[in-house]
């Protein structure tokens, strides 16, 4: 899989030295372990606004079964969730709610924009007065999936992409810790 992080990852990644806890190989190894754990335990927030949420449910269902990756522990409260999958359209009235939910999540947290709506406004890009043209206007997004709705496999693909991204240390969180 080819994940490109030219957008966020500094050149030094992966394997940068953690400035907080001693430094050296040990820390890099530790980082690796932590990233392994984090990437394999992405608990999504139960958050679906419209059609894409149905495909998200399908992904949870027996045929696609995201529990194989350990994603099935969908939490209803943002405090315990790791990743917020924006499944569906975000409208202007919802945007502050989404922001709030994101803010209330405990670090580290990741965002997946699922579907055309969350990525860019999709079918509601033109001639609508109430739709946010892409969730990244509201909160930072880690992975985008195109499709309307993306099929369950596509969501799994996105989650795998996110895993790769976490493992290579290129998520916003990790970069932020590196470069305060």
């Amino acid at each position, binding site marked *: 899989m080819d994940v490109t992080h030219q957008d966020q990852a500094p050149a030094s990644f992966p394997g940068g030295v953690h400035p907080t806890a001693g430094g050296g190989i040990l820390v890099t190894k530790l980082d690796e372990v932590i990233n392994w754990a984090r990437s394999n335990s992405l608990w999504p927030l139960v958050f679906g606004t419209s059609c894409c949420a149905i495909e998200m449910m399908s992904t949870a269902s027996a045929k696609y079964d995201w529990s194989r990756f350990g994603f099935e522990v969908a939490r209803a*409260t943002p*405090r315990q969730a790791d990743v917020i999958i924006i499944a569906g359209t975000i409208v202007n009235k919802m945007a502050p709610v989404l922001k*709030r*939910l994101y*803010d*209330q999540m405990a670090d*580290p947290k990741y965002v997946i924009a699922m579907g055309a709506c969350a990525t860019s406004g999709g079918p509601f890009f033109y001639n609508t007065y109430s739709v946010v043209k892409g969730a990244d206007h509201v909160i930072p997004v880690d992975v985008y999936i195109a499709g309307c709705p993306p099929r369950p496999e596509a969501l799994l693909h996105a989650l795998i992409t996110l895993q790769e991204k976490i493992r290579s240390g290129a998520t916003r969180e990790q970069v*932020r*810790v590196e470069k305060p």
Partner: protein
Amino acid sequence: MGSSSLIVLLLAGLAFSAGGIAVARLFVKGTRNPQKGQPYECGVPTEGSPWNQFNVGYYLYALIFLIFDVELIFLYPWAVVVKRVGMAALAEIIVFLFVLYMGFLYAHKKGALKWM
């Protein structure tokens, strides 16, 4: 190893939880933002505090529970010896339970065990 195990287990429990929580303290630096500290209520600001009077319908259960709980306490010593004492113990406990059961029926009749 006797009652000292209590202390050991207590300390072990404390150490376990403290250890777990300390790891996060050590390694994770969360960000702060004004929203984060607010209570979560489905993503909208809360109205009013839960720390106001709150109408629990459960207190009647708790009241009745307390009575039965005490009764239960007396049943333990009784149960230990009932085999030795024999029928007399059975008679005694039937009286005991019967009296309490009256109260239970009364509560039932009064509707105290209905949900409010």
